[in-house]
C-alpha cells in the first residue's frame, strides 16, 4: 500500500531520538528531552496529530520520556520485539490505519525494518522529523476544536475501553451505563470545517471514501446547506468519560418516494459506541415519516470500509441484485446501492439519542 492522506499519529523512538542519550546507559541521571523534537511534538499536537512511543526499553523509559517532554502519549510500546509489530499494535489500539502512521528513529536499521515490513508508513530520521512540521503530510487542511483535543480524547478512550472490558453485560447496557448521549442535528455554517475534516480524514466509516469523495470541499458543504432539497446533518457524541464533539455527519438528498444519502461518515473513534447504528435507524425513521418508501446509501466498496458495510448490513440495508455469496466483490468500481425498504415496522432508537422529529430524546 502506498501513502495517501495525512499522518494521524507519529510513533517516536526514545534513545537518541526524543532523548538526548540512551536511557539504560545513563545511570542515576536519565537524559533530557531533545529540545527541537519536543517543540515538534507540541507543534504537531496542536494540529491534532497524535504521538506514540515505540522503544526497546523497559516501560519506565516511556514514563520518563513523557515527563521530560511534557507530552501525554496516546500509546506506548516498550519491549524487545520488532518495531514494525509495535507500530501495528499502536495502530490497532488507536483504531487508525497503519499507513496513517509516521515513524521516527535515529537507527537506520530500525527505519529499514519498518519501511520494509510496512511500506505505507512514512519513515523519518530525527533530522527529517525536525523539518516535518512544514510538510503537507503533517499539515491537515483545517484544524478544528476536535482536532486540538484529539490527544486528550484518546486518553479518555483508554479509560472507557478498560471500563467496557470489565463491564460484562451487553454493549447496549454498557452504553446506557456510561451515560452515552448521541445528538443528531441540522448542520450550521460553523460546522462546515469539521464536516470537511471528517470527509477527508475518515476511511473506515466513509461511504464515499477515495476518488468519489474528492469533490467534498468546504464550498460543496456550504452549497448544500443552502439547497432546498438537501439536508446536512451533524452527529455529536459524549458520555461520562468525555466529550468527543462532532464525530460524524451525513448529507441527505430528499426526493419524493426515495431518500438518498450521498455521504455518510463517522470518525473511527466513535466505533462500537452505537453511533452509526443510531444514525442509520434515525435516517430510516425520518425518511418514512416524510413519506419515502426507500432509503438508499450509495457506498464505495473497498477493504477499508468493511466496518461501514457491517453497520449497513446490521441495520437491514441490502444491495438489490448483488451477486450471491461466493462471487468475488469487485472494489474500486461504482458505489454499491445499499437500500432499506421503509415498510413498517420501523427500527427503534435508544432513549439516549436526540434527533429532529424524535420526541423527548428520541425514545422509541
Amino acid at each position, binding site marked *: 500500500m502506498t501513502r495517501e492522506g495525512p499522518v494521524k499519529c507519529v510513533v517516536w523512538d526514545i534513545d537518541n531520538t526524543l532523548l538526548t542519550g540512551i536511557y539504560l546507559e545513563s545511570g542515576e541521571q536519565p537524559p533530557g528531552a531533545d529540545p527541537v523534537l519536543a517543540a515538534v511534538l507540541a507543534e504537531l499536537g496542536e494540529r491534532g496529530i497524535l504521538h506514540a512511543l515505540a522503544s526497546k526499553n523497559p516501560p519506565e523509559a516511556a514514563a520518563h520520556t513523557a515527563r521530560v517532554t511534557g507530552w501525554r502519549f496516546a500509546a506506548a510500546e516498550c519491549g524487545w520485539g520488532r518495531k514494525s509489530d509495535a507500530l501495528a499494535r499502536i495502530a490497532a489500539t488507536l483504531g487508525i490505519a497503519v499507513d496513517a502512521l509516521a515513524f521516527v528513529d535515529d537507527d537506520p536499521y530500525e527505519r529499514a525494518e519498518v519501511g520494509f515490513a510496512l511500506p505505507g508508513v512514512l519513515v523519518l530520521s530525527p533530522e527529517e522529523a525536525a523539518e516535518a512540521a512544514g510538510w503537507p503530510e503533517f499539515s491537515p487542511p483545517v484544524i478544528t476544536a476536535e482536532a486540538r483535543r484529539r490527544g486528550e480524547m484518546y486518553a479518555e478512550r483508554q479509560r472507557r475501553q478498560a471500563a467496557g472490558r470489565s*463491564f460484562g453485560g*451487553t*454493549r447496549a447496557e454498557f452504553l446506557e451505563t456510561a451515560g452515552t448521549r448521541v445528538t443528531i442535528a441540522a448542520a450550521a455554517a460553523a460546522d462546515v470545517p469539521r464536516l470537511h475534516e471528517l470527509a477527508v480524514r475518515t476511511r473506515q466509516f466513509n461511504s464515499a471514501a477515495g476518488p468519489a469523495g474528492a469533490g467534498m470541499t468546504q464550498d460543496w458543504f456550504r452549497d448544500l446547506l443552502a439547497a432546498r432539497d438537501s439536508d446536512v446533518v451533524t452527529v455529536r457524541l459524549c458520555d461520562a468519560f468525555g466529550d468527543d464533539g462532532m464525530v460524524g455527519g451525513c448529507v441527505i438528498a430528499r426526493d419524493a418516494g426515495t431518500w438518498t444519502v450521498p455521504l455518510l461518515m463517522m470518525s473511527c473513534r466513535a466505533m462500537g459506541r*452505537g453511533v452509526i447504528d443510531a444514525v442509520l435507524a434515525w435516517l430510516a425513521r425520518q425518511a418514512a415519516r416524510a413519506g419515502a418508501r426507500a432509503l438508499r446509501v450509495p457506498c464505495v466498496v473497498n*477493504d477499508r470500509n468493511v466496518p461501514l458495510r*457491517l453497520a449497513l448490513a446490521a441495520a437491514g440495508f*441490502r444491495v438489490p441484485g448483488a451477486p450471491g455469496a461466493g462471487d468475488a466483490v469487485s472494489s474500486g468500481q461504482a458505489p454499491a446501492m445499499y437500500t432499506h425498504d421503509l415498510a413498517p415496522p420501523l427500527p427503534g432508537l435508544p432513549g439516549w439519542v436526540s434527533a429532529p422529529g424524535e420526541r423527548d430524546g428520541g425514545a422509541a
Partner: protein
Amino acid sequence: MTPAGPDGAASVADQLRAFLASATGRDELRHVPPGTALFGTAVGLDSLTGTLLLREIQRRFGVDVAGEDLNLDSLATLGTLAAFVAQRARPDAAGP
C-alpha cells in the same frame, strides 16, 4: 479446499463462539445455538465486534468474508457464517 462436512462447520462454529465470547467479555456467547441471529439482540454483533470477527476468520481460516459476500448475508446466523467459512477454509490456514 477442505470437504464441507457438517463436522467442519460445527468445529468452525465452536471456534467462532469462543472468539465472540473472548472479544466481548460475555461468557454466555460460548453457548449460542447455530440458528441465533448475529445482528439480533442475543449476540448484538455491531461494526466493531463484526470487524474483529471477520479479521479473526481471515487470520485463522484464510477466508475473506467481506471480499466474497457484498451483502454480508453469510452473517445472518452463527450457523450460516460457520457453513460459509467451512466451505472455503484453506487447509494451510487451519486453526489450533
